[in-house]
Every structure is written in C-alpha cells, then in structure tokens.
C-alpha cells in the first residue's frame, strides 16, 4: 500500500508541476574563466545563471557558452574546483553577451560544494565535522573498493584490510567503535540512496569470518567525491543509522559541453612482502626429538630412514619442503576503464565501464569485477530536472578456506612440517599432517558470484527561486550466488565422497524519498537554507542453499552429480524503516552559521512501544576571519571555530525480529519435523543511542599556505544493543538487550602545507598530514560482568572493546626449587599440585600469580593489550614539475597490539606436527638457560601456549602505501596525436613496511570486521606488495 501511495504522490507531482515551468526565450552569454594572477584558463568551471537552471562548463581554453538565457540583467555564479566562487553581472539582450570572469585560487576548498545529507552546502558554511575526499587524490591506485580508497586519507576514519584475500571485507571505523554487538560499519549512501552493505555469504565459518564485501562491486573510478559525516551534527540527518558515521558517495555526472572521453588502465604484479621464517628439516627433527625426550624420555623418535637407527617416525632424507612457498605466487592485477561524459543544456550524461582482475598472492584466491554506469540528467524545462543513475556490476570472488581452519591452503602451509613432501613418487598428494595445502587449492573450489543493480531515479522541481522539491525512488538489488566444491580426493569431505553447496542470497533495498529544499538570502546578511523530507526503506533478504555429498569423481563438480542431497534451506526476512527529517541552517554574514537537524526513525525491528526514535543535533560555526576585529591582522587567512552536539542511533547487526520470543522450525528428529524455542523475547528492545559533542577549528596562515583542522570529540553510546549472556539454565545463552555504555574520545588533526606553488609549469609541492587519536572505553555493562570473545578478547568495563585478556609471563623456571615455590613462598612439590601444573619443569614459563593465592588458574588472567592504536593516520606528499608528478602516500598506526594466535600452535615447541617459527632456535635447554623461549616438550604440560602476553605483539606499523610517479605529455605533443591528454605512470603499493610485528602482515583481523575480536592474526592472508604500470588517455 505504502509504495502505491508514494508512486501516486510522485506522479501527481510530475503531472502538476510542468504547468508553471514555461520560460520565455532569451539571449546567449559566452565568455572565459581564468585564474586571478596566473591568468591561466580554468577548465571544468561551472557557470550558472542565477534563478535559472542554465549551466555551462568551461572547456580547455576556459571558454563557455550559454543559450536561451532569459533577457535582462543576470548574475552568473561560477564555481570551479580549487578556486573560490566568483560571480559576474551581465545584461542579456539580442546580441550575445561577452564576459571575462576571474576566480581566486582556493587552497582550502571553502567554496567547494560539499555533499551533506539530503543536500549540498558550501564548505564555508558546513558547521559539522565532515571530511571530504576528491577522486583525483586517489586515482591510479590499484584498489578494489571505496573502502581501500579511504584508508589513511581522512582523520577519524580508520580503515583496516582484514585479510589479503581479494574482494574480502574491510573494517571501517569512524571515530572508534561505539557498539559491542550491533554493527560498527558506517552507513553508506550513494547518490542519496542507502546501499546494501555487509556480507551476504552464509558460509562464513568456512572462511574464518572473512566476508565478501558488498561494497566492492562499486568501481572507485566512477566516484567523484566521498564525504564522511563524522560528528552528530553532520550525521544526525541520517538518524537511527548514523552512530557509526555516514559515508556519502557521489558518482560522476555529465556536464554541458564537448564530449570528454577518458580511457585508462593499469597492469601489474603482486607478491608477498615478507616471509616468516620456519624451521627446516634438520632443525625440525632436533626439536621434535627434544620434545618427545623431555616428555617421555624416548630418544630419536624422529630420524632419517637411512640413518641406521630404528626411529618411530622415519623421514625421507632430502625432503625439506617450504610449504609457504608452495602456496604463494606472483599474481597479476589489472584494471581497464573508460568513460564518456558530456551533454547539452538539456541532457547531460556520464557513461562508464570497467574491468578489474586481481589474482591472489595465495593460490586459489581471485577477484574480478565488470561494471558499467549510466548517469543521466534531463532538463525538460528550466525548472525541472529528471535524473537517473544506474550501475550494473558483476563480481566474482574465488577463494579457499582460510583463517580459523585446518583445511585452508595458507593455514596448512604454515602448519605443515618441512619433513613431508608435496607429492608421492606416483604423483598423488602426500598425506601431510594437516591436509596437503597444494592439494587443497588445486582440488577445491569456492566461488561467489554477485550481480548488482544499483540505481535511482529522481525528479527535482524548482517551485520558486531557492525552493526545490525532489522525489526519488532507489533500488539496490544484490544477488550473490555462492558455490563450493570440495573434492573426494582431499580435504574435509574426502571421507564423504566430496561435498558441494549451492546457495544464493537475494537482497533488495528499495528507498522512497521526498524532500523539500529551501535556500534564501534575506536582505544581504541572512542566509537561510534547509530541507524537510520523509523516506521509507523496504528491505527484503532471501537466503537459500542446498548441499550434497558423494560425487562420482573429481570430474563432476556440481551438485547435480552428488549422490546425496543432505541439506537445504530457504528463508526470508524483511525489515522496514520509516523516517521524517529536517535541517535548518542559518548563516549570518558568512560569519556565523548555525545548523539544526532532526530526524525521527521508526524501525520494524523493534516492538510497537519502542519503535520510534528522535535524533536531534545542533551546531555552530564562527568564522573569525570575517569579523571586523580580524581585518587588521595578516597572520590568519582563515580562522573558524566549530562546535556541535547531537544524538544518533544504531540498529545494525541485530536480527529483524530480535525483540520477539520465537519458536523456529528445523528441529527435526528421525526425519520428522520438529520445532523448538529459538529466541527469548525482549519487548523493551530499543535503539542504541550515541550522544556526541564535537569542537573544532580550521585555520590557515601565510596566505593559505599552511592550513590546519583540529577536532576534539566525546562520543558516548548508551543502551548498547548487546546479545547479553543470560543464565543458560533458562535454555538460552543470550538475549538482545540494551545494556551498557561505551565512550569514544578523540582528537583529529589534519594539515596541509603548500611548500611550493609554482603554477602549471612550475614546481609544486604540498604535504597533507592527518592524525587521529581515539580512546575507546567500555563504561558500563550489565552488572559490569565482562564478556569474552575469540581467542583472548574481552569486553570489560574500564577497558577498550576487544582488549586482550590473558596471563602475564614472568620468564622461565630455571630449576626445580623455583617450580615448587609459589608466590606466597609455599612449596607444593610433595602433593599432586605443583605451583602451576603437574608437569611443569625447568624451561617452562612462570606465569604471574595475579590474585596471589598460590595457584595459577584462569583467575590469574588480566588485561594484557589493546587492539586499538594510540594514534594513526597518513602522510601524503604531492609534487609536480611541468609534466612530471609524484605522489608519495604513507599510512601508519601506532600503539596497537596484535594477538598472534598462529603462535599458539607454531610456538608450541616439540609438540605435535606443526612446524615452528625460527623462535624455536632460542628455546630453553639446560645448556642455554638464558634463552628467551620456553623448552621443547611434547604435549605442553605447563600450557606454555595458554593465552598470555607471550603472544601479544606490538602491531604498530608505518607503511609506504602508495607511490605514484607520472608523466603527462606536453600539449604540443598531445595535440598532434589528437588526444586531449596523455599520461603514463608507475605505481607501487606497500613498497615498504616498518613494523616489529613478527607475523606475515600487521593488518589482520581473523574474524572479519568484528570489533570484539579485532587485531587477532590466525592464519590470515597478508597484504600484497604491488607494482603497476598505467596510463590515462583523454580524447
């Protein structure tokens, strides 16, 4: 019903509005836009006739032409990237008016239009904390997703690649993590339409929590700009979903003028940048034998077949397999994309397409994307604009089991001992201790194929000057087909004749939206603008899957050949969000801007009593440099103070029916249907709310050569949506509740220095630097009971979300007397219980008796680290001289810890079959009592591998993320060939990484984007070092 009403409303609007839109014919205006000082022509400047929709864009010579402008005195408004806005008065008559307009360079972008929720504003009047990124800054980089693009670029936006698996999900945190169990990713809005985001693959356990990122279907090259709304003032217009920040993506559009064709591409190779050192065969055998001897007193358990000793395990001499090398490869990456944009005053278009292909540096992983986009604007009358944005994308992810698994090629390459060969003499796979990783990637297939249709249609009508009504309908349709085939030859299902699954996710998000925008200058001083609107969002998700077993042979890889179909699911779930919102902004004399936002959201996820939430905000901006008393100083070319306060909400990450007590089906027994209680109800469930205070300043000195932005914020989140543990004696483990609070406090600093401003032909050098510091702290939990996650992660009051929790080590025991002596001086060797464990011996780790009771047990665990950095950010140097440009971008994270969970197994010296890192060579023996590592002993009776600070490592890093060296051919050469511009470049990604972390890569999150298990490395794929060569051609 709702949708029909909406459509009717829109149709009526369309039918009624044109009646008033007839405009009389007029004359033409032509002219040129140049830069003040250098007199260089400005290309791409937008020239708009005030009070009409006539718009033109300047060409390479800076020239523009406007037709059919109503005659009389008109004002032209001119905006251009990198320049302050300008205007000119012209009189339009029978003969074309000629005008020359000069624009001031605008290093700060104060007159650039910034996309804010449901509208745009000049940066000069944006009073909230909004960070912007222009596409030029990140062109030419071999990045998959818009999220990669954001990494290290914007203060307060923390981006972490969870895994090096191509196409995998990325963690994005805007001003820290505000939630424990509900979502922490920001809301993504593209061209005004909220996107389907997140991971729709249902086989996450197979991949250790690494998801497929729905956002990776978006080609970064078609993005014009990205705005991140960080504080409550900016984000509150998105109300209930804005607690984690909002990322507004604007795609490129056409503009009137000659068609501009761009074609570009790059090709390159990727490699791992570091290898962890593991033991070779000789070292391995020594340690394994030592381990067995120390436990059982048996000598020479392992040995070579030809060593003349009858060993329990005989190893073939000459075998010394470097398993990691067996699964790694040098992998290609390429991207080609083309676009054409242009149009007339009535029709403007942007059409683009691209193909992207990234093979993984571990065999069996790859990501491919094909996409196309058409953005059209049609101006049927001077007051009306109809537009449509349509994007089609196809993504294919190939992967293998990974992370938390013993069936993953990379995991098993780390785990398997060097004494085992890859193949038997007859060419079959050798049966390694952990299933042969080469066999795994060769025989097994996991693929995800997505098709995405993302589009919206809008109609904007100018009722009168400064008053626009806009209606839009958006659709994001995301279909993901997942398929797996696991061979009967090797792997988990070798005993079942192989197994396969075929599944699909079908997610639809439809958005209906109506807004009324107004903007008016009262007198010459009072600028009032704002928006009111309503929207409804309808989400439906279908999931289905079938799985089967027993395939005839490796040649049959689809379920149709499986002898057994052993499981099938098909389910549907929906939710809706109904919203009303408004913004009022008042600017006095360009000096003071105050903005008020309010949004009320109703979500179907909550019970009728708690359904609606109201999210208001207010902010103020004071531009001191516009004040009279600042006119006599020359230090500050710009100085502004900002403050804001507001409330936002969060409802992501909980189920669609989390508030209800439910019985579910599927509890079948003896092949007969059965039901069971599946969830306890909580009718009081409500929004998570975040109150955020922000204060900031922007200032620049030395004629804008040096500019700074500084923000401080306090973000308090209450009523956390937590699946809180309850007494399991109820029959349930948890219930969704609003319990607890989290606080994030932080400082953000951005600065830009223009060392050299040499103009087009001179030497230019600028430096952009950003630094963010966020302090996350859990301030309240239900009864302040801590919660545990992952290997050793914890949510505890007074500590950051996901702090590491475990034992503290106190060196190694050197002799028996130390072992018997507990922390209180008592001796325990006589009884069954020694101080720590019954098998403790010299060379084992002494753990600290934190509670001082003379026994080492689980109560002696404490907080031992934090996965969150003390500060992080990026540093970009941009240099150009004539045709040569160089960009050097470094990104850093300081003070974060990593739990290297690989070492639970790889540093369990002398136990089991896992190979060890080279640390094993520093193990304790009676001869080397000063060793740093514990003794080798089979079975680890002292539990030296228990979660402790032994495995917490400093995860700080500084990474030379991207270096781009480009050369643009001079005009005289280009014009001869008929091209508008020709540029070639070399790019290097992750060229250098400085870190003390001992694993493969410091950017790791084994369980995907989860905040509570952040910073844990468990067989996680590392990032690649990439070298690419690319070109851009303009026609």
């Amino acid at each position, binding site marked *: 019903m709702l949708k029909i009403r909406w459509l009717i409303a829109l149709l009526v609007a369309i039918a009624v509005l044109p009646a008033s839109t007839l405009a009389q014919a007029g004359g033409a205006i032509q002219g040129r836009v140049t830069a003040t000082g250098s007199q260089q022509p400005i290309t791409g400047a937008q020239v708009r006739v005030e009070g009409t929709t006539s718009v033109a864009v300047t060409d390479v010579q800076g020239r523009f032409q406007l037709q059919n402008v109503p005659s009389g005195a008109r004002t032209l408004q001119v905006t251009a990237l990198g320049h302050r806005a300008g205007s000119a008065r012209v009189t339009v008559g029978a003969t074309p008016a000629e005008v020359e307009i000069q624009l001031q360079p605008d290093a700060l972008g104060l007159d650039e239009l910034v996309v804010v929720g449901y509208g745009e504003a000049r940066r000069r009047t944006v009073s909230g904390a909004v960070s912007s990124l222009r596409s030029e800054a990140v062109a030419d980089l071999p990045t998959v997703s818009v999220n990669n693009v954001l990494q290290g670029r914007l203060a307060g936006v923390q981006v972490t690649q969870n895994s090096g698996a191509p196409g995998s999900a990325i963690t994005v945190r805007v001003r820290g993590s505000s939630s424990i169990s509900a979502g922490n990713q920001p809301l993504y809005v593209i061209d005004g339409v909220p996107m389907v985001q997140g991971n729709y693959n249902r086989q996450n356990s197979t991949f250790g929590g690494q998801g497929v990122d729905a956002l990776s279907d978006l080609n970064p090259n078609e993005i014009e700009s990205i705005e991140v709304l960080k504080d409550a003032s900016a984000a509150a217009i998105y109300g209930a979903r804005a607690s984690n920040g909002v990322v507004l993506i604007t795609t490129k559009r056409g503009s009137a003028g000659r068609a501009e064709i761009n074609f570009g591409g790059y090709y390159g190779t990727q490699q791992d940048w570091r290898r962890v050192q593991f033991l070779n065969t000789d070292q391995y055998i020594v340690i394994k034998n030592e381990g067995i001897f120390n436990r059982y007193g048996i000598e020479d358990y392992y040995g070579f077949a030809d060593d003349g000793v009858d060993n329990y395990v005989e190893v073939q001499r000459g075998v010394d397999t470097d398993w990691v090398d067996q699964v790694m490869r040098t992998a290609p990456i390429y991207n080609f994309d083309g676009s054409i944009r242009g149009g007339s005053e009535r029709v403007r278009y942007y059409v683009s397409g691209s193909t992207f292909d990234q093979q993984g540096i571990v065999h069996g992983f790859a990501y491919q994307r094909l996409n196309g986009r058409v953005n059209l604007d049609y101006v049927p009358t001077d007051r009306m604009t109809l537009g449509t944005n349509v994007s089609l994308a196809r993504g294919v992810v190939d992967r293998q089991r990974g992370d938390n698994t013993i069936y993953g090629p990379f995991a098993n390459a780390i785990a398997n001992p060097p004494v085992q060969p890859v193949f038997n003499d007859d060419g079959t796979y050798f049966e390694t201790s952990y299933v042969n990783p080469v066999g795994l990637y060769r025989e097994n297939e996991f693929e995800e194929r997505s098709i995405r249709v993302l589009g919206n249609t809008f109609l904007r009508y100018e009722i009168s000057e400064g008053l626009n009504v806009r209606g839009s309908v958006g659709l994001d349709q995301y279909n993901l087909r997942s398929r797996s085939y696991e061979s009967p030859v090797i792997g988990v299902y070798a005993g079942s004749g192989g197994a396969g699954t075929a599944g699909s996710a079908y997610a639809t998000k439809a958005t209906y939206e109506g807004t009324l925008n107004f903007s008016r200058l009262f007198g010459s001083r009072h600028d009032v603008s704002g928006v009111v609107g309503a929207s409804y969002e309808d989400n439906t998700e279908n999931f289905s899957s079938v799985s089967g077993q027993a395939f005839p042979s490796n040649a049959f890889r689809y379920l149709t050949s499986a002898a057994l179909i052993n499981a099938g699911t098909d389910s549907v*779930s929906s939710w*809706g969000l109904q919203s009303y919102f408004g913004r009022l902004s008042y600017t006095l004399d360009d000096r003071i801007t105050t903005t008020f936002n309010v949004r009320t959201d109703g979500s179907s996820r909550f019970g009728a009593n708690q359904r609606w939430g109201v999210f208001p905000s207010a902010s103020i901006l004071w531009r001191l440099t516009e004040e009279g008393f600042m006119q006599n100083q020359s230090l500050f070319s710009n100085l502004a103070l900002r403050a804001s306060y507001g409330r936002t909400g969060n409802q992501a990450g909980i189920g669609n029916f989390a508030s209800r007590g439910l019985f*579910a089906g599927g509890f079948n*027994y003896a092949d007969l249907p059965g039901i069971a209680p599946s969830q306890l*109800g909580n009718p009081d469930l409500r929004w998570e709310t975040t109150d955020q205070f922000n204060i900031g300043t922007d200032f620049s000195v030395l004629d804008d050569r040096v500019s700074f932005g500084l923000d401080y914020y306090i973000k308090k989140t209450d009523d956390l949506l937590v699946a809180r543990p309850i007494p399991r*004696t109820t*029959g349930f483990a948890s219930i969704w509740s609003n319990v607890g609070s989290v606080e994030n406090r932080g400082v953000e600093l951005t600065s830009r220095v223009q060392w050299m401003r040499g103009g087009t032909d001179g030497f230019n050098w600028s430096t952009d630097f950003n630094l963010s510091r966020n302090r996350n702290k859990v301030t309240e939990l239900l*009864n302040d009971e801590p919660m*545990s996650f992952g290997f050793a992660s914890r949510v505890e009051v007074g500590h950051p979300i996901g702090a590491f929790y475990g034992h503290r080590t106190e060196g190694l025991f050197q002799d028996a007397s130390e072992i018997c002596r507990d922390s209180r001086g008592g001796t325990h060797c006589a009884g069954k219980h020694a101080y720590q464990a019954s098998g403790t011996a010299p060379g084992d780790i002494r753990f600290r008796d934190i509670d001082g009771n003379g026994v080492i047990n689980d109560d002696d665990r404490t907080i031992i680290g934090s996965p969150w950095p003390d500060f992080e950010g990026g540093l970009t140097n941009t240099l150009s001289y004539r045709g040569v440009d160089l960009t050097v971008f470094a990104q850093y994270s300081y003070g974060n810890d990593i739990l290297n969970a690989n070492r639970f197994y790889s540093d369990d010296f002398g136990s089991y079959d896992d190979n060890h890192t080279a640390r094993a060579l520093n193990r304790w023996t009676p001869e080397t009592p000063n060793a740093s590592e514990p003794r080798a002993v089979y079975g680890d009776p002292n539990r030296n591998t228990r979660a402790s600070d032994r495995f917490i490592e400093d995860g700080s890093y500084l990474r030379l993320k991207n270096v781009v060296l480009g050369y643009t051919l001079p005009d005289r050469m280009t014009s001869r060939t008929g091209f508008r511009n020709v540029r070639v470049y070399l790019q290097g990604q992750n060229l250098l990484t400085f870190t003390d972390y001992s694993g493969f890569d410091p950017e790791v999150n084994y369980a995907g984007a989860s905040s509570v298990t952040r910073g844990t490395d468990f067989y996680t794929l590392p990032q690649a070092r990439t070298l690419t060569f690319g070109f851009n051609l303009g026609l």
Partner: protein
Amino acid sequence: MKLKHMTRLAAVALLAAACDSPLDINPRDSIDADGALSDGTAIELAVRGTYRSLQQGALYSREMTIFPELYADNLVWTGTYQTDAEVANRQISTSNTAILDAWRRSYQGINQANNVLASIPGASNLSAANASRFRGDALFLRALNYFNLVRYFGGVPIVTEPSRQVTEESAMSRSPIAAVYTQIKQDLTEAATLLPAEGSPGFATRSAANALLAKVHLEMGEWGPARDRATDVIAGGRYTLAPTYRSIFTTKNSAESIFELQYSVNNQNSLAFWYFPQALGGRRGIAPSPGLNQAFEAGDTRKEAQIGVDGSALYGIKYFRIGNSDDNVVIVRLADMFLTRAEANVRLQADPAVVRADIDTVRGRAGLGSLGADVDTTDELISAILQERRVEFAMEGHRFFDLRRTGKATTVLGIPETRLLFPIPQAERDVNTKLDQNDGY
C-alpha cells in the same frame, strides 16, 4: 499562491508515508512463542524438537560420548581443539567453551521439555493417549539431561518451568546432588508409567525409562532398585543381545538397543569424521589409547570391532559411517543392563555365580570364555565388571563415570578428589553469581 499550493502538495506526499503502518512486519519462518504450543500437533513437533536437542555437538553428536572417555583412559587427544586437550589432560579450565556448551545445551533440552510439560494441560486437539505419551517423552528427556548434568558437574540448578522472560529469578543456585537425583528419579518413575511398552528405540519407551532408572540408581548406590529395574528390562524380554558385537553398530536399532539417537543423512553427526584418520577422510582429533588397545583379552572380537590401525596410529571405528555421517548413537543397550545388574548384585553381596553369569553373558557374545569361579570377592568382581565395561562400552561415554562410581578414578587416573567433577563454567557464574564453583577450581 503557487508556492502555497506546492507546499501543500509536498506535505500530502510526505504524509502519505505515515498513513499505514508498514513497520508491522512478521517473521515467516518462525512463530511467536506465545501460543506456539496450543494444540496437540504443535506439542508433538515440540517433543521431536526436544529429542533433537540431544543431538548437539556438546551432547551426543560429539562430546557426550567422547569426554567421559577422553577424561579417563580410553581415548587420547590427537587433534587441535584446546577444549579437547584440556579434557585429555584432566585440567579443564573454567573457561572451557565445550564444557560451557554441554551445560548450555543440556538446559536447552530441559527448557524444551518444560515447554512441552507446561503446554499439555491446556492444549486443544490432544488425545489422552497422546497427552500421556508426550508427557512421558518430555519427562524422560528432562531426566536424561539432568543425569548428564549431575554426572559432569555435581549439583546443578533444577528448572522445571519453561522460560519466557529473563528475570532475577532466572539466576538459580545449585541444588544438592541428591535433590537433582530425586528429580531425575521422580521424572523417570512417572515416565515409565506413561510411555508405551513397545516402540522404536529412537523414542523413549517404558523400558528406556526403566533402563535409565537402573543406571541412575546404580550411580546413587541404590543397589536394590538398580538391580530390580535392570531385571525389569532384561526379563521384559523385548531385547536380546545382538548376535555379534559389531552388529550393534553396523545395524541401526539392533535387537539390543533400548534407546538410540537417530541420525540420517539429513541430520548428521561427525563422530566418524573425528575418529577416522586423514587417509580415510577423517580428522582423528581423538584416538583410542594404547591402554585401551591393550585392555582386550586375546580372542575378544570387540577389539577389531572398535579399533583400526593406520600405520602405527590407532583410530576408532565404532562410528564408521563417514560417508553419510549418520551413525546412530546408542545411549543405553541391553549389555549395560546385564553389567548394571551384576554390579548391583556385587554390592548386594549376591552369590558370585549370579554376578558372573551376567558378566559371562556379555563376555560370551564377544567370543570370550566364562570368568573363573575364583573371581569371587567383591574387589575381584568389581574389577571384572569394570574391565568388561571398559572394553564393551569404549567410546560410548561411560568410562570416567564407571571409574568414579567404583571409587577407582583417583588411583587409575592419578587425579585428586577435586578432579572428580568438571568445573562450573565461569561464563555461567559470571551471569549467575549464585552458582558456587566446585572445589579445586
């Protein structure tokens, strides 16, 4: 004027969204808990769901048959799960998630049973016969879950009402061991009067209730009732020992089986996968111990029926359907009744020949000769029964309980008294401060 007109139009468009309530969205693959079990059909579905709850990994799909063997001397740890390793080392930490899950899943089944029990009185379209049948099922299943809980943890909270809300009262303190057993006996005694005499071993029957009751009495040292209930089952004549030991497992629902959890290709467990070596497509996370391997007398057919050899490595083959992963799990079978009665009789100072006759019945099926008449003291007979139980029920989840019941656990396993119970999971104590920890943890 025009402006006013337009504004009004826009207002209408905006208000259109507010008229109906599109936010009333209901789930389409679940039903609201209130009124979910209002009729006989729904209750039958919920009964099946309660059987299904026994098939959790922490219960009979994996750990309930593995942990009592791994904690004792029948299985060794050969895998990667730290939760298993702690059990194998008999150093279970209070944070062991597998133990937590055993606690949780047992109570999940109890809550399901309580839902059934509470809904029967008011249900429509429920015949009297079905009402008593379903009540019997629910009582039996509740008792089995409590029996598992009390054997793992000692005294535990006794919950007999379904959970609808979380309240202060949801945090309950532990009842003494005796009280838990009283509840179990009460449930099983009533179940025995309600359940049908005949039926598939996949569902509870009167014999299943009596068999479980016999085991409960034995565990409590109530030797007379233990002997009598075992005799009821044996003398009832519904069950006969399977002709060969192997056939108990190769044939689903053999003549010997009293209560056997039903698995199928659509409802699998991974027992064979965990026991089988990689060469056969398994993971061999646990394996028969060398001690178990040596415990078999020469000629005992049970050895090759239970233990396979891959190179130098032993692996369990009791559960062997790795292809379909649908091995049934036998929870109680007739041989257990013979040995239960034998043990009760020893304690009742019965004639050793009577005791030996029951043991010999089990031995005979395994291809072994009778015990000598010189096995006649209490100690010798108990040792003989323990030995017999060890090889008869290996990998069926009895060994640790048998050692503990006969007072041999501390000496055989070399553990202190404080390791005779598993720890109450700390995560549960975190949310329920009324729960005391077991001594020594």
